[in-house]
C-alpha cells in the first residue's frame, strides 16, 4: 500500500461515525500485531476489535495440561513443548512447576528438535505437547513422518489440535444481536488460510451473513483489512487481502499430510466447551503414537478467572476483575495472560484500554 492509500485508510478508520461495529480477529499473531502496531489508538470509538479463540495456548483446557504434567513426572518419559505452554497452569500446576520439581520437561523451538533427543536417549519416551491449529498440525505430522524415517520408536504426541471453522460458528451462535459477544465481521487468520485456503471462509461468510477478510500481518495490511470489514458490514462475503500467500484452495501438500495422519474429532475449548468436529486427532492406524489425548475435556480454571468470557468477546480483558491486579504477565492466572498471543497479555503489555 502506498502512503496515500494508507493515509486514506487511517482517516476513514479514525473518522468513522456509523453504527457501532465489533470485529473479531481469530489468530493470535493478529492479536500480537495489533498490539505491536498500536492500532486501537487509530480507530474511531465506534470500531471495536475483539480477540477471539485464536491463540492455541489460550484455548487449551486444564485436563490437557494436567495430563502433560503427569506424563512429565512419569519415570522414563519426557514432555517436550514450545515455551509459551510451559507457564500455563492446569488445575493446580504448570509444566514449569513440574520441571522445577524435577520432572523432565524440555523446551524447544521446533518439534523436529525432539527427534535428536529421542535418538540420543533411546530408553526414554518423548511426548510432544502438540497444541495448535491448521498451521501447526502439518508440522507435527511431518515430525512423525521424519521419526518413522529415522526409525525412532520412542516419540509420541499428546494432541490438542483445533480447527477454525466450527469454533467461528460457535462464536457467532453465542453472540446476542445487540448484547455482548455480538460479532459483525472477522479478520480471517492469514496463516491458517495459507494452509486451508480461503474458500472455507467464503462458505462461512455466506452461511453467517457476515463479512470475512483474509489479512496479512503488517500494520498497513491490518489497517486495510479492518477498513474493508467496516465497509462490508452486513454483507456475507469473504475478501482475500493476503493473495501473495493465500489461495482459494490452500496448500495441497500440507492438507494431504494432515489427511494422512489425522481425522476430525470433537474438541474441548476453554470457555466454549466441547464443539463437534472442531479438532483433529491421530487416525486409528497411528493411535500407538498418541500419548492419551482422548477424553481430556475437563476445564477447571482458577477462581475468578474470566478467560472464557474474554475468548468469546463477552468482556474486554480489562473488565476481568483479576486483570492487572492479581493476574499479570509475571504472575499469570489465566492462559490469556500467559501466551504472547493471548489477548490479556497483549492488552496488558501495550497499555490497551479499549
Amino acid at each position, binding site marked *: 500500500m502506498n502512503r496515500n492509500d*494508507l493515509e486514506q485508510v*487511517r482517516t476513514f478508520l479514525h473518522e468513522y461515525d456509523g453504527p457501532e461495529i465489533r470485529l473479531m480477529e481469530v489468530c493470535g*499473531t493478529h492479536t*500480537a500485531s495489533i*498490539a*505491536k*502496531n*498500536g*492500532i*486501537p*489508538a*487509530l480507530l474511531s470509538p465506534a470500531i471495536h476489535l475483539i480477540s477471539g479463540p485464536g491463540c492455541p495456548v489460550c484455548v487449551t483446557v486444564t485436563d490437557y495440561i494436567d495430563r502433560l504434567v503427569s506424563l512429565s513426572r512419569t519415570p522414563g518419559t519426557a514432555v517436550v513443548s514450545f*515455551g509459551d505452554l510451559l*507457564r500455563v497452569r492446569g488445575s493446580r500446576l504448570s509444566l514449569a512447576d513440574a520441571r522445577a520439581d524435577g520432572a523432565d520437561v*524440555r*523446551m524447544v*523451538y*521446533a518439534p523436529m*528438535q525432539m527427534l*535428536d533427543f529421542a535418538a*540420543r*536417549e533411546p530408553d526414554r519416551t518423548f511426548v510432544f505437547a502438540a497444541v495448535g491449529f491448521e498451521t501447526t498440525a502439518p508440522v507435527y505430522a511431518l515430525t512423525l513422518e521424519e521419526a518413522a524415517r529415522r526409525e525412532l520408536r520412542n516419540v509420541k504426541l499428546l494432541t490438542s489440535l483445533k480447527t477454525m471453522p466450527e469454533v467461528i460458528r460457535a462464536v457467532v451462535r453465542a453472540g446476542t444481536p445487540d448484547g455482548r459477544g455480538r460479532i459483525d465481521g472477522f479478520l480471517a487468520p492469514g496463516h491458517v488460510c495459507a494452509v486451508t485456503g480461503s474458500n472455507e471462509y467464503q462458505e462461512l461468510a455466506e452461511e453467517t451473513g457476515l463479512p470475512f477478510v483474509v489479512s496479512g500481518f503488517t*500494520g*498497513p495490511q491490518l*489497517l486495510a483489512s479492518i477498513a474493508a470489514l467496516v465497509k462490508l458490514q452486513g454483507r456475507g462475503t469473504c475478501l482475500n487481502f493476503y493473495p501473495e500467500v493465500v489461495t482459494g484452495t490452500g496448500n495441497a501438500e500440507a492438507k494431504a499430510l494432515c489427511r494422512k495422519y489425522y481425522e476430525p474429532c470433537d474438541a474441548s475449548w476453554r470457555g466454549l466447551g466441547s464443539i463437534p468436529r472442531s479438532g483433529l486427532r491421530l487416525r486409528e492406524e497411528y493411535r500407538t503414537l498418541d500419548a492419551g489425548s482422548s477424553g481430556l475435556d475437563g476445564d477447571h480454571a482458577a477462581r475468578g478467572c474470566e478467560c472464557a468470557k474474554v475468548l468469546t468477546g463477552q468482556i474486554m480483558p480489562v473488565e476481568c476483575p483479576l486483570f492487572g491486579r492479581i493476574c*499479570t*504477565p*509475571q504472575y499469570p492466572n489465566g492462559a490469556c495472560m500467559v501466551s*504472547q498471543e493471548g489477548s490479556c497479555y497483549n492488552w*496488558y*503489555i*501495550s*497499555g*490497551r484500554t479499549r
Partner: protein
Amino acid sequence: MLEERITMAHGSGGESTARLIAELFAPCFHNEYLDKMTDSSVVPGSGRLAVTTDSFVVTPVEYPGGNIGRLAVCGTVNDLLMSGAEPRYLTAGFILQEGLPVEVLRRVVSSMAETAREAGVSIVTGDTKVIEGKKGGEGTDQEPGLMINTAGIGFVPDGVVPEPDRIRAGDKILVSGTLGEHHATILARRMGLDNESLASDNAPLGEMVRALRDAGIRVHAMRDITRGGLATVLHEFAISSGRTLIIQESLVPVKQAVRDFCGILGLEPVYMGNEGKIAIVTAPEDAERAVRAIRAARYGQDAAIIGEAADTAEGRKPALICRTPVGGERVLGPLYGEGLPRIC
C-alpha cells in the same frame, strides 16, 4: 604441555592447576600485579571507588562476534563506566566443566586478555575451579562449558554521576547503535541456525563514554542496554524520573538481519539484550553534539536520537510510549517473563 581437555585435577590446587595457570592464564593476562602470583594483589589508587561484580554463564561459550571471555570483560567494564567510573582493575574467577577442550579455554582467555587491553583494565587476580561435566542434558549444546565471574574496580572522578531523576521535559533520548545483535546471535546459535549476517555486539564502551564527557555533554541519564532491552531501561527511566518518555519506533536503529530474524520469531528488538549499547538522555540542546561525539567513537557509528521526555499528563502514570510506524501508539512496559536464559 597441557592435556587436550580439562580434568578434575586442574581444579585440585596441585601440580595440574599450577601448570594450567603457568601455561595458559599467566602468559595471556600478564601484568606487574598478577605476575607476582600472591594470594591477593596489592594495587595502587585512591579516591572514590566504583566496585561491581557479574557472573557470565552464556551458552554457547563461543559465538559469532565474541565469546564468554570477551563478554566477561565488557559486561563488568561497561557497568563501571555507567557509574561514571574510569575502569582500572578486574578479577577473574573461572568455573570449568570437566572435559572442556583446553583449546576452547585458550581462545576464551586470550580474547579476554585482548579485550582487557582494549578497555585499559588489568586482570589482577584470578581463581580456577573444576566441576563435573554435563551428562547429556537439555538442548542441543552438549559440550562441556565454562562460567566466569569478574569483579571490577574503577575510579570515579569528581563531578555528578548521571541519575535518571535528573530527566526533564524536552530532554532527548539517544541510543548508541543498533539493537538486538547479541540476543539474536545467541538465540540463532541455540536454534542451530547459521546466519552469517548476525554477530554479537559485545564491546567495551569506554571510548564513547569518554567522548561524551570530553564534549561536555550534559548527560541526565545513562545505562547500558543489556537483558530486558531498551524498553526495560527506558521504562525504568520513566518511573524513576516521573516523566513520560516517547520514542519513535521508526527512528530506533536495527540491522536488517536482526529485523528479519525478529520478524520470523515474533520478537521485538526493543526487548532484546545487547552487550555493547547504551541509552542516554541529554539536555535538548546537547543532543545533536552527543550523537556526533558517539558516532566518532568506536562502536558508536549508528548512534541516533530516538525520542524525547515529556511531563506526565494530569491523571496519567509515568510511562514509556512508543509511536509506531503506522501512526499508532502503545505503552512499552518492562520485559515480562523469563526472557532468554543464559544470554550473558
